[in-house]
């Protein structure tokens, strides 16, 4: 059989050669006995006008014994090199002899069109799908080496093959997330997922893969793709830690990705941004991005494109974080030494995410170093940090542990005498373990614990805590299909207790628990289709409030709002479809099922009447496990990209979202003691949709990225509250809420420079957000049911974040932020009542506080860059609010000795210097 193949192969070659050299088939007759290459070449050159090129050294092992008569050169050489690793290539009168690989004399197969008459095709159509043979996947570490992928064949078959593998950091073995692999001549590309995994479909043949990763040195790999195969690529970190700002992982993604309104930030960029007290803060950086606003400094929440602060899903390695802040919102609860990167989805929210209306903030922690033990420590004005990481089993299992704690009590000591005995403390811990079972299976465990405590003058004490654990299993079925299955438990709780007045001494507790199960599949169907599908389920259990006496004298009547249970499930399917090289669509559907579960007693209200005690018809008691109410609705996620040119694209998107869990908060910003409520028969789920359109352009070799995005968004059934509503321990919250509708629109302009000594980004956003209460059963309506601006409606907002690198060791960062002042409700009249002047307020949010402006500056000094030293040190010195502008945090009117006066409250009202010292070991 094999002989027949070989024969036909030779025959075809002969035919081809014959046809190619029509008219002048020079024939040779030779007789070699153990001839060296130079003897062979000399003989052949002497008998023809051919000239041979070769490397003598490569051929020193070759001895040719051959006798032929009147054969063309090709036959002679075929026979001479038979069963060796030597190749020849003939072009006109030149012959190239090579070892190990062949020089191609025409353009690479797959470069443009496949040679229709390439005679080699049938000869090698053997064993094409043996690509998955178990063998060690090569680690491609060198740029100039040519890696062979798949089952090697003498000639390259037409068609395409799939290349997949992992991209890792050569030093730590960590996955490089969001790295891009781009093949210039075919204009195809792929990006790695959170595990560093990629899969790309390429024409068979030789390619140069350009690999770029966040914080990694750009690199390339040369491959010959014979058939489906794997290649792991190791990248080097940028050695200087004075990194360029790279707001996006992937320099071409700005223009080429199908998604709109997605921003990824690497921790190194985040660390460049000066913050108050010098504490690197992943959430404060989010506020510098276009489309993100907040009600003020030192607040926990942020608002994305007009959404409320509880409409953001904040994920830490897949675990839901309910309170992402420490110390009343002054600090983010995420340890900057552990965080790898953050990704904010404002518009194109992937199908795998759901359950919140406005955005997803996906925070990914690093994996531990798989090769050696390292660590770092940092000392700041208010906190100290330590992290340690290293291999448990080299190259297979690693851990990373990080901890932070505060010594902020000194700040409280600065307070007036009567508050000196107050205490505040917090800590957080992260633990991550990753283990590679084999090439196809990886497991990841991550845990998070944060705790805040504060106490006012030994009176009322408060504490709140996030506790999360998640286990993930990643399985590769083959090059085309992989799955990620995860299960986890998330918990948020707070406790308040007071014992100052023995009769009223109490303990108040709240907690929310959710158990999650998720399975996400990615299937690279073909080079045109990438499918994502999966299902997820969250079981919520909320204890909305327990209120108990905390000493024997206390007369507090124990009270507990009954626990709530619900199951939120979703099935999703999405397809990224490359219709043509210029046009791609990402379309998906996520079908949500929400079940409100018993045991519970539900009040039934008379239809079309306000939900008031008087309108309760009766109530129904449901047993444990029974389904009380089901809401089911599809979410649609569509976006499309059309490339107008290599550097210019236009994108559009539309998506809908549903939210079943509501934060009950009637204050301007989220406070740690707000309560969560699940949708039930009397509280509708929130839903919203958004349409967006964008123009994206790259310039100067992708080092300058520009974009303009416009959006229009609608929000429905957002909860507002009747005036004087008490939200804590409210057994009938439906009687105190009012459904609110919202609309938001805006235009976001962003320009960023990703390389060079000066880099950074600049954005301008025009955006409006309006809310309206038009619930006819609400009773009293805010502003008579007309639209009014939301608290975070800041029409004009400008941000600049820049870094200038003088040398590898010194750089300076400057941040500027300007925005219109947020809306407030101001008094418009005064009167006497209850023995004092009182004020009468205007329509809600009819006025604004003064505009906001802040500038921050920092200098980053790196220790020397010698690779071999015990520790690497760095300093950050800076000033927050350089100009000392007294930005209004809030304005308020309050009575003092019977007279009402207006005050403007500013925080960080003076330049605040800070210093941070970091050690890596």
């Amino acid at each position, binding site marked *: 059989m094999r002989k027949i193949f070989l024969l036909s192969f030779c025959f075809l070659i002969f035919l081809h050669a014959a046809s190619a050299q029509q008219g002048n088939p020079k024939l040779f007759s030779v007789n070699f006995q153990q001839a060296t290459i130079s003897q062979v070449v000399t003989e052949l050159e002497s008998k023809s006008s051919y000239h041979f090129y070769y490397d003598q050294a490569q051929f020193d092992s070759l001895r040719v014994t051959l006798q032929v008569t009147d054969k063309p050169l090709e036959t002679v050489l075929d026979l001479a090199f038979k069963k060796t690793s030597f190749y020849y290539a003939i072009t006109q009168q030149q012959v190239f002899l090579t070892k190990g690989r062949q020089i191609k004399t025409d353009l690479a197969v797959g470069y443009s069109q496949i040679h229709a008459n390439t005679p080699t095709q049938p000869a090698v159509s053997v064993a094409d799908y043996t690509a998955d043979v178990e063998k060690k996947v090569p680690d491609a570490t060198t740029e100039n080496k040519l890696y062979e992928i798949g089952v090697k064949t003498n000639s390259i078959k037409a068609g395409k093959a799939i290349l997949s593998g992992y991209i890792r950091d050569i030093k730590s073995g960590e996955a490089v997330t969001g790295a891009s692999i781009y093949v210039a001549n075919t204009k195809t590309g792929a990006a790695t997922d959170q595990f560093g995994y990629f899969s790309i479909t390429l024409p068979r043949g030789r390619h140069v893969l350009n690999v770029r990763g966040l914080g990694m040195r750009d690199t390339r790999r040369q491959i010959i793709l014979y058939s489906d195969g794997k290649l792991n690529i190791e990248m080097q970190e940028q050695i200087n830690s004075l990194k360029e700002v790279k707001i996006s992982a992937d320099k071409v993604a700005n223009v080429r990705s199908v998604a709109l309104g997605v921003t990824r930030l690497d921790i190194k960029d985040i660390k460049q941004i000066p913050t108050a007290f010098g504490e690197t803060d992943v959430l404060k950086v989010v506020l510098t991005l276009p489309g993100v606003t907040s009600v003020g400094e030192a607040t926990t929440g942020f608002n994305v494109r007009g959404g409320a602060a509880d409409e953001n899903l904040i994920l830490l390695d897949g675990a839901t974080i309910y309170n992402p802040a420490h110390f009343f919102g002054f600090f983010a609860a995420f340890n900057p030494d552990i965080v790898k990167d953050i990704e904010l989805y404002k518009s194109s929210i992937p199908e795998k995410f759901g359950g919140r209306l406005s955005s997803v903030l996906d925070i990914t922690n690093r994996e531990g170093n798989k090769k050696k033990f390292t660590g770092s420590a940092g000392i700041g004005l208010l906190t100290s940090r330590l992290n340690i990481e290293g291999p448990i089993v080299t190259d297979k299992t690693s851990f990373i542990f990080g901890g932070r704690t505060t010594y902020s009590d000194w700040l409280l000591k600065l307070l007036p005498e009567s508050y000196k005995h107050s205490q505040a403390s917090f800590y957080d811990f992260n633990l991550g373990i990753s283990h590679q079972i084999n090439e196809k299976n990886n497991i990841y465990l991550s845990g998070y614990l944060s705790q805040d405590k504060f106490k006012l003058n030994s009176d009322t004490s408060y504490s709140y805590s996030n506790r999360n654990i998640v286990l993930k299993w990643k399985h590769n079925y083959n090059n085309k299909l992989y799955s990620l299955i995860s299960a986890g438990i998330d918990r948020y709780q707070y406790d308040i207790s007071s014992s100052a007045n023995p009769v009223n001494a109490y303990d108040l507790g709240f907690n929310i628990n959710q158990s999650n199960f998720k399975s996400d599949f990615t299937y690279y169907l073909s080079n045109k289709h990438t499918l994502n599908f999966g299902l997820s389920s969250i079981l919520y259990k909320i204890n909305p409030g327990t209120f108990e006496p905390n000493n024997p004298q206390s007369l507090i009547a124990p009270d507990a709002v009954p626990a709530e249970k619900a199951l939120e499930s979703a099935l999703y399917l999405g397809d990224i479809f490359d219709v043509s090289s210029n046009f791609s669509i990402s379309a998906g559907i996520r079908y949500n099922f929400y079940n409100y579960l018993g045991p519970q007693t539900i009040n039934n209200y008379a239809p079309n009447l306000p939900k008031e005690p008087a309108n309760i018809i009766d109530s129904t008691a449901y047993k444990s496990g029974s389904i009380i109410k089901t809401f089911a609705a599809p979410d649609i996620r569509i976006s499309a990209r059309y490339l107008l040119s290599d550097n210019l694209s236009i994108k559009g998107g539309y998506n809908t979202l549903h939210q079943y869990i509501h934060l009950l908060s009637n204050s301007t910003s989220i406070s740690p003691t707000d309560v969560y409520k699940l949708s039930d028969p009397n509280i509708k789920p929130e839903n919203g949709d958004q349409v967006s359109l964008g123009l994206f352009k790259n310039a100067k070799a992708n080092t300058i990225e520009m974009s303009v995005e416009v959006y229009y968004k609608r929000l429905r059934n957002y909860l507002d509250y009747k005036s004087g509503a008490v939200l804590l321990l409210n057994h009938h919250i439906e009687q105190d809420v009012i459904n609110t509708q919202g609309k938001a629109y805006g235009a976001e302009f962003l320009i960023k420079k990703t390389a060079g000594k000066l880099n950074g980004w600049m954005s301008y956003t025009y955006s409006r957000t309006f809310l309206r209460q038009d619930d006819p059963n609400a009773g009293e309506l805010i502003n008579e049911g007309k639209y009014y601006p939301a608290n975070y409606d800041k029409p004009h907002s400008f941000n600049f974040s820049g870094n200038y690198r003088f040398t590898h060791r010194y750089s300076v960062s400057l941040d500027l932020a300007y925005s219109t002042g947020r809306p407030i409700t101001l008094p418009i009249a*005064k009167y006497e009542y209850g023995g004092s002047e009182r004020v009468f307020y205007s329509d809600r949010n009819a006025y604004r506080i003064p505009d906001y402006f802040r500038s921050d500056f920092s200098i980053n000094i790196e220790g020397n860059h010698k690779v071999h030293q015990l520790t690497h040190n760095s300093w950050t010195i800076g000033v927050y609010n350089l100009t000392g502008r007294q930005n209004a945090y809030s304005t308020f009117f309050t009575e003092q000795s019977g007279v009402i006066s207006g005050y403007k409250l500013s925080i960080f*009202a003076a330049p605040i210097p800070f210093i941070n010292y970091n050690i890596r070991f």
Partner: protein
Amino acid sequence: MKNWKFLLFIIIISVGCKKPYNPKVINAPSSYLVVEGVINTNDVTTIKLSRTVNLNSAVTTNPVNDATISVESDAGSSYGLTSSVAGTYTLSGTTLDNTRKYRIRIKTEDNKEYLSDFVQTMVTPPIDSIGFNLTGKGIQIYVNTHDPKNNTHYYRFDYSETWKFHSKYNSAFISNGVGILYRTPDQDIYTCFTGNTSSTILLGSSAKLKQDVIYQNPVIAIESTSEKIEIKYSILVDEYALTADAYKFWGNLKKNTEQLGSIFDAEPSEISGNIHNTANATEPVIGYISAGTVSSKRVFISNTQLPQSWYPTYPYSCELDSAWFHAPHTGENQVQDILVPFLALPVSAFFNGGPGPAGYLYSDSQCVDCTIRGTKQQPAFWQ
């Protein structure tokens, strides 16, 4: 439960700053009717009518005169109020039936009619006691009450405080416009009485307790250096039982006008009372009319009950100077020039070897004359 917000507020103030804020003049489109008062079923009912004024107005009081007010019961009876002081309308000498519901009807001189919702009569339980606790800074006065029937739950308090104080220097002399004479006891200006009324809204609730008990509900804090407690202090606390709805109104009013301004505080919200224009339901009318009885209690706190180390701080800086009949260098008659025409008040005489005074030590009137800040008339209730 809001205490931590207060802590945050303090922290913010210490990191940041609080400055007066006066936005550019904002004027309400019109002036709204303000109705304040309680239908007191077993004593004098007082209703005050006023209108709101613009924020930048110098005076806040804007009484509404010439209105007709009557109290109506759900049994159909009506009682007219009479006005003696501007904007104040009273009904006295009538005892109302506590089992009925009441409302008020107001007809203003521009012929607009306002009506409050019928409210249930709340019988206020007696105040059990008023006491005080020593705090690091002074004293905290509190009130205790309870309803043995367990059906009051919501309480409001206000108070009127009176205290005896003296001026910095005890003057033994007085000018009669011609010369300096000995001050007679009835011309004494060293010891006076003064008082104040509550300006903050004081609320108490036992809704979350097993028994209807209000224990040590804070009333007022007095600093250890305050003149109020230098001799003797008295406080009269009035207690009003409220319905849940009225409690909500007062709570809202307190939140809106006494809040601290941290952004964790609730936003200002509409204060909807229970009074409406009968012709235009959307016209804002400020106020809530409750009905019920009032319980009062007075206590005295004497300086001897307080730590001996506490010492009052006089509110003005005071110095004694000397006025000579013959000033040593100039020969000027300072007594004639300064003390006789009341430019300052003589305190005591000083001598320079002669039989009569060589002059008088004197000080400013706010350091000598307590009647500037109070009255010498001892209140009838004083013990």
